């Protein structure tokens, strides 16, 4: 694998993560539990679709096959998406959305922080801008995990169930293959293993403060990075791609 191929695939992964979570969060628009949280969730969705835009633009440029960011976002098939399985999981109740966001944003925060030191100037610049946004996503979702976990009996039980449910997707965050290896050797990224201790530390701290328990289960899923998705992604894409599929090339 050449450095350019790896850089394209890696940037696409980061872009797909942001794009798919953003699409999920935008489903909350008009359905938030309260007006304030409705705006908070859609603000995060907007931050993430912004990150997806610059990442996919860069991926398209690196690929050099005359595809645009929109082509990548709207005109690929399910198997071509390389987002984490965690990102595509359904919203569930508000607590499930918050747990998903916390696990994902915590990863993004440490990943972007490392990427700001990348020798690839474009990636470093994207990381620096995104990091400011993501720090708030972590803060907001962590505050909610704590309040729901240490809230009422029902909120505790629900958010614990969401954590148990989503935990099996969490280790895929650290999945590495030839793409990572090639870029690590080129000095563009660092190993995801370097983030693991920080990520686990933050998750443990918040989960403990929320009086929740980390699941013991060692059973973990992966496949997202290889385009092998859960059943949920197809439905998400059907909705997200509808306009471009029905009216090719439409703009507004």
């Amino acid at each position, binding site marked *: 694998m050449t450095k350019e191929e790896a850089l394209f695939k890696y940037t696409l992964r980061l872009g797909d993560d942001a794009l798919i979570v953003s699409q999920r969060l935008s489903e909350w628009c008009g359905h938030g539990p*309260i007006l*304030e*949280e409705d*705006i*908070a969730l859609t603000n995060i969705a907007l931050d993430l679709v912004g990150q997806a835009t610059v990442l996919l633009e860069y991926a398209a440029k690196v690929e050099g096959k005359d595809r645009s960011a929109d082509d990548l976002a709207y005109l690929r098939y399910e198997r071509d998406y390389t987002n984490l399985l965690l990102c595509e999981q359904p919203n569930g109740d508000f607590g499930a959305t918050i747990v998903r966001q916390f696990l994902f944003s915590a990863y993004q925060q440490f990943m972007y922080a490392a990427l700001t030191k990348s020798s690839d100037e474009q990636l470093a610049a994207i990381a620096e801008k995104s990091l400011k946004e993501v720090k708030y996503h972590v803060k*907001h979702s962590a*505050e909610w995990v704590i*309040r729901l976990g240490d809230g009422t009996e029902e909120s505790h039980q629900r958010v614990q169930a969401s954590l148990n449910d989503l935990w099996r997707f969490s280790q895929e965050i650290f999945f590495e293959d030839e793409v990572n290896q090639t870029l690590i050797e080129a000095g563009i990224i660092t190993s995801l293993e370097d983030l693991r201790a920080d990520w686990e530390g933050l998750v443990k701290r918040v989960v403990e403060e929320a009086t929740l328990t980390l699941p013991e289960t060692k059973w973990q899923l992966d496949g997202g990075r290889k385009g092998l998705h859960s059943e949920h992604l197809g439905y998400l894409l059907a909705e997200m791609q509808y306009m471009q599929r029905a009216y090719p090339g439409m703009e507004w």
Partner: protein
Amino acid sequence: MTKKEWPLYEVFIRSKQGLSHKHVGSLRAADETMAVENARDVYTRRSEGVSIWVVESKNIFASDPSEADSLFEPADSKVYRHPTFYDVPDGISHM
């Protein structure tokens, strides 16, 4: 199940350094920390501010509207309290 409402908070935003915080509205939140976060999301998403204050609405003690005539009307007849009897020298702007 009883439905408990979150407390109401009043939100004050400082739009830039050097100006004072101004009341912009109110919102509900679980506690002060979340009130600041909600205020950030609801009231500063178009770069309206550099600082946020929140205070629980119940902590604001307000004047009684029915006493308005004794509180405020007496001031109406005291025009001399406005500095309008001075000539402002040329060259002084922003007065």
